[in-house]
């Protein structure tokens, strides 16, 4: 006989259901409001929308944010933090210049905006350099930079039927888009970097997320960087890190709403989502779709697809899960339903006597 503390989880307990309920039930109490992150003037989704986002494992969250910490030796220096923030923040041509398209002439005119440039720390040379990178023919005319559309190519590409002007207009539009979104400096996807002070350390929080490029910066500590993009964490730091990220993100959402949920429930959710070595979505394209049981899958979503596929590949439902057994009208293999008790009542005197008489 083993002694068991009453604080220990009883064997057979349907911990999965309890965890799912514990995370799902407060959902109705959560607000839909977005949260105003200090400095980063973005309404980062919290509450239910964010929780759904985590559980769905979106490729990219609605508002990705990255938190960068510097290596210990630089962490307390504001100048370095500012420098890093400046280096990573991406600035596009459209941010510092006025761009005009002239369809008739087939040109795009870029006019440098000095005030904006000053604010963002961009000089005209930097602008020029980045536009030149595209190996385009550039004319400078006072303040203007003129870029012409490659006309010869246009003729060849077009099918003779379409009017020329149309193709030219299209080309100018394309060029306009391309030039507007040319990166002058910074890391792709990162913008609006803000420096915050946390426990005497300067940290940078920015909109967008691109760990791969940010950690190339020599001041950045790659072991303490964080993003709310779980998929990205999985790709760079691996499944274990992603599992921890799920736990952290879910917990943060719940804490922010003032809801207490035991960490064990959240951990269990993260562990199932990561049990296959990759993050699986909670839903028909992930965990639910991977169930062994045909009936359980059919009962969830896409009933017909599952029921037609099952015979084709000759599937069998072993009736080992919960839903299947409910459908089949059997006891569920969970909790007391797992315990098989065999009891033969001792023969009563009456019965034995009756037998004797016979």
């Amino acid at each position, binding site marked *: *006989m*083993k*002694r*068991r503390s*009453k*604080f*220990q*989880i009883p*064997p057979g307990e*349907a*911990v*999965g*259901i309890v*965890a*799912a*309920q*514990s995370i*799902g*039930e407060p*959902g*109705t109490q959560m*607000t*839909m409001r*977005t949260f*105003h992150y200090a400095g980063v003037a*973005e309404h980062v989704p919290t509450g*239910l929308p964010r929780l*759904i986002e985590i559980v769905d494992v979106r490729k990219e969250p609605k508002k990705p944010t990255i938190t960068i910490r510097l290596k210990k030796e630089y962490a307390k220096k504001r100048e370095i933090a500012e420098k890093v923030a400046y280096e990573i923040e991406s600035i596009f041509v459209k941010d510092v210049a006025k761009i005009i398209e002239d369809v008739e002439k087939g040109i795009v005119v870029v006019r440098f905006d000095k005030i904006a440039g000053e604010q963002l720390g961009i000089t005209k040379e930097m602008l020029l350099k980045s536009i030149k990178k595209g190996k385009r023919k550039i004319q400078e005319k006072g303040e203007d930079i003129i870029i012409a559309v490659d006309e010869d190519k246009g003729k060849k590409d077009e099918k003779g039927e379409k009017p020329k002007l149309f193709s030219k207009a299209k080309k100018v539009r394309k060029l306009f888009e391309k030039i507007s979104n040319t990166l002058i400096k910074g890391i792709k996807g990162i913008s*609006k970097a803000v420096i915050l002070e946390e426990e005497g350390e300067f940290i940078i929080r920015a909109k967008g997320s691109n760990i791969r490029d940010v950690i190339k910066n020599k001041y950045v500590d790659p072991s303490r960087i964080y993003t709310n993009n779980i998929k990205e964490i999985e790709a760079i730091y691996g499944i274990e890190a992603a599992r921890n990220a799920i736990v952290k993100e879910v917990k943060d959402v719940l804490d922010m709403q003032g809801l*207490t*949920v*035991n960490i*064990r*429930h959240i*951990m*269990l959710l993260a*562990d*199932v989502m990561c049990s296959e070595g990759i993050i699986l979505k*909670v839903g028909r394209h*992930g965990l*639910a779709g991977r169930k*062994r049981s045909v*009936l*359980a899958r*059919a*009962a969830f979503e896409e*009933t*017909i697809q599952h029921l037609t596929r099952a015979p084709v*590949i*000759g599937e*069998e*439902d072993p*009736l080992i*899960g919960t*839903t299947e057994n*409910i*459908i*089949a009208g*059997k006891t569920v293999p969970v909790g007391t339903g*797992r315990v098989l008790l065999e009891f033969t009542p001792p023969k009563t005197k009456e019965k034995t006597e009756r037998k004797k008489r016979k």
Partner: protein
Amino acid sequence: MVLHYNPAEYETKKIKFSIFSPETILSMSVAEITIPDTYEEGYPIDNGLMDQRLGVIDPGLRCKTCGGTERTCPGHFGHITLVRPVIHVLFAKYIYEALARTCEHCHKVITEDVKKRPKKCPLCKKELAKIEFQKPTTFLINGKEVLPTQIREMLSEIPDEEVEKLGFSPQNAHPKWMVLTVLPVPPVNLRPSITLESGEKSEDDLTHKLVDIIRVNQKLKANIEAGAPQLIVEDLWNLLQYHVSTYFDNETANIPPARHRSGRPLKTLAQRLKGKEGRFRYNLSGKRVNFSARTVVSPDPVITINEVGVPYEVAEELTIPIPVTKWNMEELKDYIRRETYPRAVYVIRGDGRRIKVTEASREKILEELKVGWIVERQLIDGDVVLFNRQPSLHRISMMAHLVKVLPGKTFKINPVVTPPYNADFDGDEMNLHALQSEEARAEAREIMLVEKQILSPRHGHAIISPQEDIVSGVFFLTSDETVLDKKEAAKLLYKAGITKLPKPDKGKYYSGKLIFSMLLPDDLSVKFTSKLGKEVVIKNGKLIKGEVDSKGIEQYIIEKIFLMHGPSYTTKFLKNLTDVALEYLSMKGLSVSLRHYKISEEHQRKVRELLQKMDKEIENLIIKYKNKTLERAPGMTLKETLESLILQITSKTRDSMGEIVVESLGEDSPSIIMARIGARGSILNAIQMSAVVGQQVVRNKRLWRGYYGRTLVYFHPKKLTGRERGFVYYYFSKGLEPDEFYHHAMAGRESIVNTAIRTARSGYMQRRLIHAMQDLVVLEDLTVRDAGGQIIQTIYGGDGKDPMFTKGKEEYETKPKEDDVDTV
């Protein structure tokens, strides 16, 4: 085909899925159906869709196959021989796969991907045809449409080994079976016809569809036999294909749904299974039950938390089966003898026959009653039942209660058990289930009983705890000023079943703290800061210092007592606490009136001053904004900066009203006290009733929509001051201005819409979570595994602790004492 076995004796171990081959369909068919009609002069037509060999649904008739009645006959399949084969829509995808992945010359699998079909067969080197699939049922070979006959031929030529290589199972689903040559006709039980009041018969949707199929099939046959031109034959063939396709799935893309005469789309096979109201979710995952009751709930603080007050009418209707043993024989006989309420309604004999206890049968039953029979008696006090309120988001949305039959027509529950059900008494209805087996009753009593759910498995805090008036009562009782004379003290203590008065501690009088301490167990020692910020000390079951509020009861006293003394002790404690608290509260009295929300002239002036100050600040900001001298916050436009600053000012202003209101109403105003100790309401409610309602927002922004640049026509466009943008300057007890009222309604509407959306979204999320995690179970070795036995966690939660008994970071300091440990 009669059932030659008793289904109860067999157990379903596994379910295998396969496609019927034409041979199987024929072998299980009891009749070929050839007549596209159902009844003639009230009788089923032979070889018609209601053929009596397919089973019977009309009372009085007998099944021609098994001889059973409409109750005993399980129904039998028939068949329709299709003159020309048709594609099974649901399997068309797999037919395409089988065709495109094999070589039509050597019938070997040549590619893994249907899209990467080579031009030449890599095995027999012959030219391969280009195969295209046009949804839903058309196949093109080299751009030419092919008929199902040819497809079937091509599929039949694929040998079994190759079928296996395709990933198909040749025994269960040979691709050739996916082209139908015979169609099974489901038994009549699956498509019963309804007799309308007028005596007219209305057929099931499936029957309608089958009628269509047979009609077209006959017409096709006649045309072929008459040697009609190929074009006409193919037209009919396509029509047959259409009917068979819609018979299986009436929602296929690119096929117009078959409609009823009234224009309603028919509900065919796929529609019967699919979705929330489909067979799976409506009838298989969720089942209807007997022995249940439902009515309105109302509060009854006199019964314990474990009980549920059941109306006499319900108790009379619900029964519980009791097996007869030699020990309870006499007791049960008494029930059988009785003619009024707690009586036996039915008796089930050893052979399973059910006899109603009536005037006539009573004597005979009493005479024959034997051990092993079952007596079904009415619900009585003390029976265990399950009690539930929807939505059942929790496991504690369904708990076991003990029956207490009470007058009235509602279920009564102790208001303290309200939170787990999330119930209130504004008309909520709840369900009750009478348990029908000894195992169920034992489990319910031992596991699901209310008192065992005092701590929530979600966070380990008490979820069943006193609320509202009880909290107020405890607070007033434990406050420092409370002194009671002997009579009062005795009255209170008597409520808790204490008949011995303690020594008075305040001269001749008794302090409230002393009375409260009498309820506490002797070994309870806690120290905490109350919501009012004061320290509360309980040492060895004596309240030494402080006033107990909702936080103290909930998070310290109840939880601690539950962990130290277990469920039944806590129930008794809760009972005593509620009784004493409510008794004291009714002695002392607690009420609010309009007067309690009226602030003095002086304070009203202060409120107006604050509002004027706020208006000035807002105006200044707007001027700055218009001059463009306002400093732009990082990452925001100027306008956004302005709006966010104004919002900050308005919320700051409203918050600072709190002080004024509390000052004016007084710290000891009932509404303020109730808000502070967590009994009911909040300071914000008081502010809105007595000082100012405050800024109305939609989507976290001040109101802006409606007319051009304003919310209502009465305002100047683009004016950004408070009033125009939804600040409500008045308060509820005074009443709102018309425009303010409108603004308030705008914000109110948003919150209603949000709640509606939120419930839908969170409901779906929870369904998905449950589906993803429902099979996870902790095993004896504390590993968490899924249904297939795969390990998800090596030790549950990293330490194998029950979340019900662990609070976030601060694990229970109380280490399990020797007597806390029970043996397994």
